[in-house]
């Protein structure tokens, strides 16, 4: 061992374990990024920045390890076997310590890794919010999706607050203990669940979209929901809700559908992907409205009735049949009214 460890000699022969350490360190560094970036068509710089950041750090680690080992090589050549052994043990200790430290650092640096996705200006967020309501009819070329998480996250939190607001206005009969949890669970569950489901479908249908883009797309799609729910929780008018549901919710859904269509090839795949997304998105708005709005009406009904004790209802317990059944009749009514009004005005 001592003879082969000439200064400047090949380092890997001297100590093969160190190569292992080096690989370990690299593995630790590369395990940090979770957001993949297989898409070149997005044109957004955030993904590139994340990748660049990670690559830079790996290079730094490499350079450090190389420098340390060069020093070791010189040292080992001059000293005796005993010194080399102690040095080697010390080095292994040092490497292990360094590995642990780098792991701890990479845990903390997860925040830094996420930071590029939050790198936005207020003007950008504003324009993206507006754009989420404007469908673009461009099918031949894949449309851009900004891979950013600030807007979606804030919209989800806003939706949580609006849901809480809606639940609170529907009096206190709902169990409050589940109220906050229900709101957060519903919103985050929808956002993350539907995003991953559509991402899975997109993978099956060979659509060109990443998980990050899916999260951003669906997150900004919730802007329409926020507007509609905020208005209709305060103004209890069914015709108004259906109008908003079709107009605002429809616009934001159309926007998402247009983006997905432009990134998918083949009519069957397009139909499957977009049909699922559109149905889920529109039905979610209906669910949110009726699950927490019908409660008010139910309470009003029971209060008006003679001495019937108000039923204790958890918002989730409301059967889906009720809104659906009422929907068909009221929707027909409202559309008939709208048609009548338009006829009268002409």
């Amino acid at each position, binding site marked *: 061992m001592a003879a082969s460890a000439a200064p400047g000699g090949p380092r890997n022969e001297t100590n093969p374990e160190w190569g292992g350490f080096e690989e370990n360190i690299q593995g630790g560094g590369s395990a940090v990024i979770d957001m993949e970036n297989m898409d070149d068509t997005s044109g957004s710089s955030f993904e590139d920045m994340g990748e660049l950041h990670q690559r830079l750090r790996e290079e730094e680690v490499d350079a450090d390890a190389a420098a340390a080992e060069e*020093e070791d090589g*010189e*040292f080992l050549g*001059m000293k005796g076997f005993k010194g080399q052994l102690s040095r080697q043990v010390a080095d292994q200790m040092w490497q292990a310590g360094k590995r642990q430290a780098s792991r701890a650092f990479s845990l903390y640096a997860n*925040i830094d890794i*996420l*930071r590029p*996705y*939050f*790198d*936005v*200006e*207020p003007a950008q*967020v504003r324009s993206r919010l507006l754009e989420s309501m404007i469908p673009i009819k461009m099918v031949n070329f894949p449309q851009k999706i900004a891979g950013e998480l*600030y807007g979606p*996250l*804030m919209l989800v*939190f*806003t939706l949580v*607050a609006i849901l*809480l*607001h809606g639940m*609170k*206005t529907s009096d*206190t*009969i*709902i*169990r*409050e*203990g589940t*109220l*906050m949890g229900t709101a957060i669970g519903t919103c985050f569950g929808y956002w993350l669940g539907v995003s991953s489901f559509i991402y899975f479908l997109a993978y099956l249908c060979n659509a060109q979209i990443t998980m990050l883009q899916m999260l951003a797309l669906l997150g900004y799609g919730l802007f329409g929901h926020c507007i509609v729910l905020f208005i209709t929780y305060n103004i209890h008018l069914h015709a108004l809700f259906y109008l908003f549901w079709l107009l605002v919710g429809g616009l934001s859904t159309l926007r998402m559908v247009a983006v997905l269509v432009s990134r998918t090839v083949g009519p069957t795949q397009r139909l499957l992907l977009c049909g699922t997304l559109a149905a889920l998105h529109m039905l979610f708005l209906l669910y949110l409205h009726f699950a927490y709005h019908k409660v008010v009406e139910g309470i009003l009904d029971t209060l008006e009735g003679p001495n019937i004790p108000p039923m204790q209802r958890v918002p989730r317990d409301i059967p889906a049949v009720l809104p659906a059944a009422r929907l068909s009749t009221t929707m027909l009514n409202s559309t008939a009214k709208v048609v009548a009004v338009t006829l009268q005005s002409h």
Partner: protein
Amino acid sequence: MAEATESAGDGGAASPRPLFAGLSDITISQDIPIEGEITIPMRSRIREFDSSTLNESVQNTIMRDLKAVGKKFMHVLYPRKSNTLLRDWDLWGPLFLCVILALMLQRDAVDSEKYGGPQFAEVFVTLWFGAVTITLNSKLLGGNISVFQSLCVLGYCILPLTVAMLICRLVLLVELGPVNFLVRLLVVILMFAWSVVASTAFLADSQPPNRKTLAVYPVCLFYFVISWMVLTFTPQ
């Protein structure tokens, strides 16, 4: 001193073989014990300081901490450009406020089974979860503020809303009605604005100037949810 003798021995062994470039650094490190002796008086002084706080009566210690907390309350009530809230952060004030608010928001034990008002745990978790979320958001946006500083500021700025809750409970003792509701609404809106203004006065400087809006928005949302809880509270 043991280190010094060891390193001196190494230096002696190294001197016949001057080829070692690495060991010459070790001889330089002999200076360290001298530095250490220089720092010793400082340490003893610190020890004296420590022993002085150990020897003081419990009353003095508590009073000093209470004064610090009270001073921070004054900073929140009269927000001005100052770093006191940021520099010596503590979580005592937020804890007090949080517990008081949660206790006041909790309905009477008998009714809580039946009507299920906002429970203590719900309010408590909402407050801390919200504060942590805002802090994470401000860190992600690139703000140069530590986690506990942000938690401290957000927690202390609940004070106006706690006052609003107190006023609301007092107002609710009088008979209910639209006037009663209007009074509560006005109080809550005023205190909500106060909370937001106070917290942004402390937090906005830590953000890059072009992103203040992005950092302030979740703060508004957070205080909005709390004030909504305060406003909708009615004892059964």
